[in-house]
């Protein structure tokens, strides 16, 4: 499963059980994010025991995007039997500032840095 545009891509690699978000996500509000939300919902239907969210190439995320990722994390939290690992990059400053919020939403979430 993959959504790509000139500026960003969101891809689910089933064999790696990993969602990759890349580029700059700054879509205009929740309506424009709907296809991405749909892809993330499908990932949850796949119900992997361990799920990775790889953000190491996600250079930019606007507040609507923060909303989308946070909602996804809360949905995973509600499943209870999925272990979520978020991979961030220390070379992208916003991630060091903001990814801790995902962990506050879901304390069992494992946050790893490259």
């Amino acid at each position, binding site marked *: 499963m993959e959504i790509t545009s000139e500026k960003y891509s969101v891809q689910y690699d089933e064999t790696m059980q990993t969602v990759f978000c890349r580029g*700059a996500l*700054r879509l*205009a*509000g*929740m*309506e424009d994010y709907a296809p991405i939300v749909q892809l993330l919902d499908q990932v949850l239907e796949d119900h992997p025991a361990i799920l990775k969210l790889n953000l190491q190439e996600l250079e*930019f995320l*606007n*507040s*609507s995007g*923060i*909303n989308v990722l*946070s*909602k996804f994390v*809360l*949905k995973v939290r509600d499943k209870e039997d999925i272990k979520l690992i978020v991979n961030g990059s220390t*070379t*992208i*400053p*916003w991630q060091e*500032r*903001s990814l801790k*919020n995902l962990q*506050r*939403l879901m304390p069992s979430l494992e946050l790893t840095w490259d």
Partner: protein
Amino acid sequence: MVQILGDFSEHLPVSKEYLTIVFSPSSAPLQQRWHNNGLSADFMADYFAAFFPRSQDTVSKINSKVEVKSAVSFIANELLENAMKFNDSTTEYPISITLQLHTDSLVFLATNSLKAQTVDHFQSFIQEIMTADPGDLLIRQLEKNAEEDSPDSSGLGLLTMMSDYLAKIGWKFETVQEDPEIITVTTMVYLMM
């Protein structure tokens, strides 16, 4: 009417380095110009990164080129997204964003017109975010958005600036024209360096 809320300073020292971008709301529909927010924010970020790093003795994280670029790009983009979203498109009043470089801070000023009936709602939201811990409020808001399936991001941009970037924010509401009435809001964001 002039109303000041939050950390808004009307007596900023004069800045010799600043950049202002002005948008005429009527020249293109919002959707068509949405990507301009990103372009403008990134331009401001690249432009001001040239002045960094500043002195070596600063304690703030926001002193390297890469940190400044990232912070300016996020904050300017959120301010422009809000300005475009809440602008009263029935007026011809321009939307503008200014970024000033001061000795110890970066100051953003974003102005847009606002529908009179949305002012009260906006001001009560501001009162709420000024009285609570921004980090806790951000987490509460994210939880609330997930439950309510809210169509917009409900102040997440402002809360993220305050919580994750330790920004101080203030607002000035002004009636700039009486008949027909035009109300503007200027959002001021201070980022300490």
